[in-house]
């Protein structure tokens, strides 16, 4: 067995939330707020539905091939050679998306906290820690997440609560009329792409103690993530208003920066950094693990641990080379990436796979 760990439903839900929330929380508000202004929460609702749909597809596929990961059952659906090819693409995809995440992570820390420090330091450190976690398997970073997950939720709630004196819910009005449907739809792409990272369930499901709970996991975690994104978005708009929010790179950070209570509770953004780094560790570990596991299954190895180091090096190099600067990264994430992700690996491909599986249906089910 490549991965001996098993995680229960509760752990899986927490893992799926932490896997999406930290980076989404930080980046989504800006793009959504810029495009859809105060109606961004409608976009978020739309993206929740999209993610629920994609989650359903991913779980449905997995249930057809119990005990098999995405990398394995594509071969059953598409046949050995085409299957191998698609599985390979998926491994590349997980490396690509993780490189993006690591780059986002480093860029944020450099831009918002420590401009003098080279970005590679942040990326190397976090990669080293997650390599350690990944080497020790799924159960380990799941357990780490069980400690981090409540911290993330509590921090988001507490900082939002502390910022309420700065908020004015009137800034959410008027609803819908000013912007109309087109910007709202456009703004929904980015959060949808983010939340459809739930596709990870297709890799994770063999390692669930209750595979049948897959739908529950997908739905619950998407709803939790969506709720927190909406809280963060509404908080951001209520604090800054639709005109200002699109200008910030990290509105969630600014929302915390404006907290000033009792001459003491001020300048709390470092706590955000703390929690965010912790969340990002889990996120990066999950994708790292998927890439390593996928390549091991693709190569049909008995143990994935020898691959941890090489994949880590590839991740580091890719994340450095992909983009020149945070500006490039932002433009890419805001424009090209969401449609790309949604039409291919995090949506389109899965739908095609499901269709193929249904057509060849009985083959899959019997296995």
């Amino acid at each position, binding site marked *: 067995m490549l991965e001996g760990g098993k995680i229960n439903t509760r752990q899986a839900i927490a893992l799926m939330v932490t896997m999406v929330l930290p980076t989404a929380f930080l980046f989504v508000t800006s793009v959504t707020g810029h495009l859809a202004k105060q109606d961004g929460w409608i976009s978020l609702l739309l993206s929740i539905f999209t993610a629920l749909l994609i989650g359903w597809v991913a779980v449905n596929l997995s249930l057809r091939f119990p005990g098999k990961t995405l990398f394995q059952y594509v071969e059953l659906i598409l046949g050995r050679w085409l299957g191998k090819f698609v599985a390979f693409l998926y491994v590349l995809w997980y490396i690509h998306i993780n490189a993006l995440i690591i780059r986002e992570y480093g860029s944020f820390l450099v831009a*918002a*906290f*420590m*401009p*003098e*420090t*080279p970005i590679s*330091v942040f990326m*190397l*450190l976090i990669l*080293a820690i997650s390599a*350690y976690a990944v*080497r020790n398997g799924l159960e380990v970073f799941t357990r780490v997440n069980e400690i981090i997950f409540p911290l993330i939720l509590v921090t988001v709630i507490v900082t939002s609560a502390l910022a309420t004196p*700065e908020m004015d819910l*009137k800034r959410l*009005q*008027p609803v819908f*009329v*000013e912007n109309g449907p087109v910007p709202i739809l456009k703004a929904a792409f980015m959060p949808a792409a983010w939340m459809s990272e739930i596709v990870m369930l297709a890799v994770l499901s063999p390692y669930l103690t209750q595979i049948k709970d897959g739908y529950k996991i997908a739905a619950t975690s998407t709803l939790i993530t969506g709720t927190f994104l909406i809280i963060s978005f509404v908080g951001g708009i209520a*604090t*800054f*208003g639709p*005109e*200002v929010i699109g*200008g910030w790179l990290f509105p969630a950070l*600014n929302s915390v*920066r*404006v907290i*000033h209570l009792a*001459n003491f509770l*001020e*300048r709390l953004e470092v706590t955000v950094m703390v929690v965010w780094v912790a969340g990002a560790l889990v996120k990066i570990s999950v994708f790292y693990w998927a890439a390593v596991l996928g390549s091991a299954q693709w190569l049909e190895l008995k143990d994935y641990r020898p691959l941890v180091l090489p994949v880590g090096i590839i991740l580091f190099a890719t994340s450095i080379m992909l983009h020149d600067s945070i500006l490039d990264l932002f433009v890419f994430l805001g424009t090209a990436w969401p449609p790309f992700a949604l039409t291919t690996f995090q949506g389109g491909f899965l739908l095609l796979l499901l269709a193929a599986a249904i057509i060849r249906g009985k083959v899959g089910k019997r296995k």
Partner: protein
Amino acid sequence: MRNKLACLALLVMIAGVLGGCWSRKEMSELAIVLGAGVDSAPGGQVRLTLQLARTSAFMAGGDGGGGKEPSTWVISDTGETIADVQRKLSAKISRHIYWAHDVILVFGEEAARGGIRKYTNFFSRELQPRETMWVMVARGEAKDILETGSELERTSAQDIGFLARARTGFSVIFKDFIIMLASKGGNPIATMVEIVDRGVISGDIAKDKPTKRKGVALTGTAVFDDDKLVGWLNMTETRGLLWLKGEVLKGVITFPSLTEPGRELSVNIIRGQTEVEPQYDGESVRFYVNIEVEGDLIEQQSVHESVLEEHERNGMEKEMAREIEGKARLALDKAQGEYGLDIFDFGEAFRRKYPREWEKLKDRWNEVFSGAGVEFAVDSHIRRSGLQGRRTSVPE
């Protein structure tokens, strides 16, 4: 396992060796900015004035000679942009200029009249300056404001910061200021500060005669047309402005007694709330301003009326409402008449209710606002009366 540990140890060590210089700033290498002033300088340049804390003067306890040493250092220079001046200043200041604790940001009158947007970007783009610093406009030069001292606080910047925090006048943090700058439905306003006489110092230090002190006070509100300063509201009008913006937090309302002419009563405000309801019939815009206020009676010059008697109390409350409306009218008239500017964010209220109509009106909103009728409905209550129910110093 061993390799892994070795790798981690190596990473930590590498981090330790490479580190050292990156973002580390020893506290004794910081020039802590407490107040910043922006003035315009000849040739379209900008003059930045910094009030820096002389940290050695802040020693607690007996050793540091606290209080005797001057606690601030004010220094300024001119340049093309604020960042440019900052760079120039760093040639004069031996430490890193550290913005994170900047309490106030003061714009000089002339700079503000020339358009303030030119100067604000640095403060929102840079990491260190906070969105929570207080934004003010100086009557005169910002530099002069920063060069003053303080009697109760260590530095005048902190002094002014506390004044602003007390919210007796209109005060605004940088975040809200840039929101106002970005909004079409209202014009920005900021606290107005100037140098005034602030009492005398007496006691041991000034043996012979009390020394007069000058210091900074909040004296009203600066009114902008888009980003250009156009005028001021005095303190009384500012109170009216606060009622209209619904930002009254603290303060005292003083109004004449109904039954005893020439005698006044004062009520301390506990809670106030304002709602603005626009109405548009396709031609004219009207605003209905509903103000709800609760307060405690804290002083009564009149002798015979008593807050305990319901009808007398009702009379007081009515008089109080009239006073509030009067103050608000004062500010409104000035905004509508003298300046012709919506400084109350009425436009935002209108936009929320009539988003489609707003599209047509927004470009000439100030004009529409000036012609709009405003009706007040003030609902005031006296909830408590301090420790006394009726006056006892009057012989029956």
